[in-house]
């Protein structure tokens, strides 16, 4: 401590409100589940006092991937399917930041599937929200890998041919999975609690969010929303505890120890009622950034500049060369 090891964050301790994290007016449809996810995340930021300048949201492409626009923090609306590799780069260079990822079922499970598999295995400290509306929303209703068999869409006018992919089961099947949860957008308390626990977990926290799309699939989750018995709360003293008010509405409950991966896989295979809660949690899995970088200090600005210059120099057309070419 006698060395200059501590550095002050130059901000007065401020009391934030949700509005302090809100940027612009969301362009999502009224009733879109993305709105609920946004407010849960803003609540998390406010309650944990996350500093906007130390928080970053990274997404790919899709309705759900517009998320970073609506957070008054740092953010990057990336390219289709590439939210995870971008987030990994940010995490590698800036371990002081809280990094969140918002991705859609198309973005993550279709074009971005390869990145997804490896991101799970890297287990970098990221909080990942998969907004799964079982459709490509932004491009107006094409089937995605999570669309149920038989779903009629612009690309499957006769009904989808294949059994839907189950993102939770996939994640649980990859080495180094460390935090896997499932939740639905229409139970705000649970959504908040799960995201909170995901954020607290150091490692790759994967939260599969069943998300309503009233525009293209208005009836997809209707029965689940209306009937609380079509949702099952997964709880355990090591996982989530359920508030009495929630327990009163949602009578279907499953007690499950989140250390039990076989149990988790079994629960994940259920589709009706939808199991919601923390399915798997293993805090002992090492993070890739720790394995790779040990405790070295991060890149200095000078080092980054030097590296960039070196790369740019490869493409520089030197004046002499240019003249010679004339």
């Amino acid at each position, binding site marked *: *401590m*006698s*060395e*200059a*090891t*501590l*550095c*002050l*964050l*130059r*901000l*007065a*301790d401020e009391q934030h*409100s*949700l509005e302090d994290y809100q940027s*612009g*007016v969301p362009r999502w449809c*009224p*009733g*879109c*589940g993305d*709105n*609920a996810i*946004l*407010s849960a995340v*803003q*609540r998390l930021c406010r309650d944990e006092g996350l500093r906007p300048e130390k928080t970053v949201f990274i997404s790919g492409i899709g309705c759900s991937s517009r998320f970073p626009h609506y957070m008054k923090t740092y953010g990057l609306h990336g390219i289709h399917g590439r939210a995870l590799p971008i987030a990994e780069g940010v995490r590698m260079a*800036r*371990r*002081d930041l809280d990094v969140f990822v918002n991705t859609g079922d198309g973005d993550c499970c279709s074009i971005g599937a390869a990145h997804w598999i490896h991101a799970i295995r890297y287990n970098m400290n990221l909080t990942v929200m998969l907004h799964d509306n079982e459709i490509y929303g932004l491009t107006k209703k094409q089937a995605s890998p999570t669309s149920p068999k038989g779903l009629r869409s612009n690309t499957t006018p006769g009904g989808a041919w294949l059994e839907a992919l189950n993102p939770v089961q996939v994640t649980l099947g990859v080495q180094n999975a460390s935090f896997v949860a499932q939740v639905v*957008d*229409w*139970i*705000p*308390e649970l959504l908040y609690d799960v995201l909170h626990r995901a954020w607290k977990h150091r490692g790759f926290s994967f939260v599969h969010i069943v998300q*309503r799309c*009233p525009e293209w699939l208005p009836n997809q989750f*209707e029965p689940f*929303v*209306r009937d609380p018995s079509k949702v099952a709360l997964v*709880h*355990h*003293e090591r996982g*989530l*505890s*359920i*508030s*009495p*008010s929630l*327990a*009163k*509405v949602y*009578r279907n*409950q499953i*007690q499950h120890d989140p250390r039990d991966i076989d149990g988790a896989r079994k629960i994940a295979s259920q589709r009706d009622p939808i199991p919601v809660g923390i399915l798997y949690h293993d805090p002992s899995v090492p993070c890739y950034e720790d394995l790779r970088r040990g*405790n070295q*200090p*991060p890149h200095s600005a000078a080092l980054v500049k030097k590296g960039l210059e070196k790369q740019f120099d490869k493409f520089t057309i030197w004046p002499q060369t240019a003249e010679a070419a004339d």
Partner: protein
Amino acid sequence: MHGAFQDELAFHLTGRLRAATEGPAPEDGGGTLEPIAGRGLLPALFAPYADLAQLRHDFPLLLAPGKPAESLTAVMESALAGRDADDAEAASRLRHHGLRLERALRGLAAKKGALPLAEAWKEAGAELAAADPEIGESLNALKGAFPAKATLVPCDGALPIALLKHEWHRVQEERLAALRGEIETLVHGLENILAADFITSPAGRSPERLRATIGEALADHFDLAAMASLLDRGRTVATLQESRRSRLQALLSVLKGQRYAPLPGSDVTAHKLTFTSARTALKAWQERLPARAELARTLAMARLEVAGEYTESRHDALFARFDDRRASEALEAISVPSLVCLRGDDLQPDEAAAVLEAFAAGLPFKVLVQVDSLFDGEARLAPAAVLAHALTASAFGFADAAVLQTTSARLLAEIPPLQNVLGHRGPGLVTLFSGAGAEHSRIPAYLAAAAALESRVFPALFHDPAGGQPTSLAANPAADADWPEYVLDCEDSRQQRQKQSLAFTALDFLAADPRFAEHFALLGKGADDSHLVPAAEAADAAPGAAEQRLPFVLMADTAGRMHKVLADETLLAAAKQVLRRWRALRAQFTLPAPVIVEAPAPAAPAEAPAETPAVTAAPVEEAATDPDAAYIETARCSSCGACLLVNDKLFVYDGNKQAQIKDVSLGSFRDLVEAAESCPLAIIHPGKPRDPAEEGLADLLARAAAL
């Protein structure tokens, strides 16, 4: 190791760094002590507030004549509140522009000192508009919400007197308006008596007088002489006795000539009631004593006269004996206090003596003592600070004096107590530290003033003899502890978030004063800090313990890096003295023990739902609501906004962006039913209709039943 410690101990005891002639630094310890001067170090506790212009806080203030002082931020917030609720984008643009203006105004005030708001607005507005032409429209929209003739006052050395005078004028205006009102009524009454007498006198009924009353245009149509003689013949009213007339005239001349509350339209100049010297104020008070006595006597007599109760046989003798002192007391009942503002060097011992004399006599003197520097160059209390402390202590000796001690930084919060002191009938003392001394020029006065309060160097207290409350130390942060503690957010060398808990001690205050730079030494890289303890611990240590426990404070450089800085014995002694004074103050005005209300036993939880072993939250109690009232299960709302689309006055979001019913009277039963139908979660319950005459009720009731 040992050598390094010896070096540190030697510095602590002597305040001198190792001279080059003493040979190289000890090899074993590796670390060296270095001077802190010129490194731009400030106590780490100050660091979060380094750029006050960026932070919304109490300052600058807006002082508008006749209105209570308000912070610029508060006025801006109320200007922005409730704008364009239906157009969120326009509202957010307006807010954005408003906040930019606020920041620019704050910057201007900090740079230029107090200035008229109109001027600052023009300058800031022009600058902002040059960069963003759209902003002009927003600024015009906001302008109406700001007081027209306000002054923008930053927290600097001129603030306390400006604010005190502002508040003083408000209190005094009210007081003088009451006095002026009474005098006007009496004048009117007295003049009426004289006028009535004149009308019934021969002169009042003369043809010339009648002509003047009727007016030239019609005068020729009447035989005024005949009318005058007719009136004179019928005269029944006795004329005023000469003695009474002259008494009334004398009373009138006193009332019209008095200089406390000059009457509207008169050319009498008001007495000066604000002073920059207590001696002058006292002298003026004494010089005005005869005039005050005369006014008091006049008021008493005039009241009797107007009521027709003045009897010469009884009252003449009484009022002749009405001596100055008693008259003066009578006038005090109307109370016209004087304000004395003493700043820094104005406060000489003879001034303090004059203040005490006034207080001892119970005169309604309101005295502001503004201290700009608390310590002299030797870390002893500066003379003005000594006198300020002495005055506060003695003021308690005069039971009827109201006392407020505070610092500039808290002034806005202290306006209600300040009003009490100014409005109080007897003497009032305000001692205040401004933070504007030259030694604090590196930091804003606001910060120095706040630090003085935090570090107990200048504690806050309030005593109101009329209020019936015990003397209060409540305005001090963590008033029941030696020092307040704060947790700083830091990051370590690996950029991980850390919490650093720090006490705000007098040593931290002293460390911000560059005059004492030589009393601090920076621990070099790799130095031995095993004998160092936080200042709070060292200040509390028994004498002699210094050998093993040297005090350090945490300071931050301009890049925000924190360093341990060792303090010498002289400053530690000063800090210990501050602590002793603070403890004595607490002992003197023990805080009332908190009243502990026994919490009611929690109601037994409602029938526990089956198989829920992991319940941790407290059982929710169902509110006993009206079964017919509409409600939303707010906790289940998923923020979809469907109900707000139906009626965004009736349905609003709470702080968690979940819908609630704001007030059922803001919408119809139809709204409730339609919202309930549109809610995907079916958590809106429309209840029973409130208006039996609502159109289409039968249909709506059927739809509600189907929900």
